[in-house]
């Protein structure tokens, strides 16, 4: 160790080699060590360790409770979501029903109106056709008369003798052709 220049006083302090092997000090160190260990042991076993154990247990309890509460809330949320989905589906199907009913009603109304309109159109058509037929008939009669008159006149003018019956017969025959 201190092999160089120490004087007598230094030699007294550091001469006996390792201070660790100076047996004169062992008693002192061991005494104070035992005192220290006993003090630490009592501080730990009476105060510190039970307190920390209690804190840890309490925390564990709190965590467990909170987890359970969270589980509950989660279940509730799932339930609420299911209820919401069900309500949504119900509302949808109800809406579908209403739409279908409305569609059917409208269709019925429409069909009725169309049928009525068809009937009216048919009636009007029939009437129109009747009128056209009438007009045509009238027109034919008029044409015949005019043709008879004209034919008679023409025959007379040409110097023949207009026999009314003959003329009429001739005109009728012609008109048929």
């Amino acid at each position, binding site marked *: 160790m201190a092999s160089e220049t120490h004087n007598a006083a230094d030699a007294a302090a*550091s001469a006996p080699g390792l201070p660790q092997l100076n047996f004169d*000090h062992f008693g002192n*160190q061991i005494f104070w060590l035992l005192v220290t260990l006993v003090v630490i042991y009592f501080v730990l076993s009476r105060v510190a360790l039970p307190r920390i154990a209690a804190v840890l247990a309490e925390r564990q309890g709190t965590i467990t409770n909170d987890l359970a509460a969270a589980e509950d809330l989660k279940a509730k949320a799932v339930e609420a979501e299911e209820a919401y989905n069900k309500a949504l589906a119900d509302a949808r199907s109800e809406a579908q029903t209403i739409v279908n009913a409305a569609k059917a009603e409208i269709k019925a109304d429409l069909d009725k109106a169309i049928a009525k309109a068809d009937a009216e159109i048919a009636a009007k058509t029939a009437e129109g056709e009747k009128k056209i037929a009438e007009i045509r008939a009238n027109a034919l009669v008029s044409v015949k008369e005019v043709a008879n008159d004209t034919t008679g006149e023409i025959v007379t003018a040409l110097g023949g003798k207009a026999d009314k019956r003959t003329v009429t017969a001739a005109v009728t025959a012609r008109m048929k052709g």
Partner: protein
Amino acid sequence: MATETHGADQGGLVFHPMDQFIVKPLFGDGPVGLFTLTNVTLWMALTVLAIFALLVLGTSGRATIPSRVQSVAELVYDFIRKMVEDVAGKDALVFFPYIMTLFLFILFANFLGLLPMAFTTTSHIAVTAVMAVMVFLTVTIVGFVKHGFGFLGLFWVSSAPLALRPVLALIEVISYFVRPVSHSIRLAGNMMAGHAVVKVFAAFAPMILISTGIGLVVTPLSILAISTIYALEVLVAFIQAYVFTILTCVYLKDALHPSH
């Protein structure tokens, strides 16, 4: 560090790496008796105070959401409790306060010893040997109380061939009695060596005051070395406390469950 003035009369470098381990009375210069207040007393008292501050004052809030100090205290608690339970088994938890005492004392003595000018109580074989012997006696007594002479089965390796068993038993007995020796010397040796090395490098640091030329190289190098060794020592301080504790748990396991 440089306050030691032994041999400064020559102006050379001063090497007294072991002076830091000398047990001195706190007051006066008298002889060291059994109850004398010494630097040992002082640093052990500081150890107690540090443990008290961490584990009692630190947890005084008893908060469910811990403060920083409280969470460190809980971390230490959990660390040692888990170690006892995992290594020595659930029935070893009765010894948990005892093992916690050893761990905390060694840990804080090691760390406090790293403060400049500090005295490292755990660097003394007298201190570590007492703890190792305490562990040894505890393990032996618990073993015999729990298992009677069945505890001797620890030395009888029943899985070995019959012819080898007496030889193995002899080796096992020797290794059993060597345990407290290695247990104590490991801790004291590690502490002493690291601190002595730091001191040796520290003695080189004032080289620049003696010779500027050499000092320009040696002084920065020695300061770097001090820092590096110091960092290593911080690691060693924890590891040695850990090793001492886990070996205690391993020995305790032998006492509680002696079958191989």
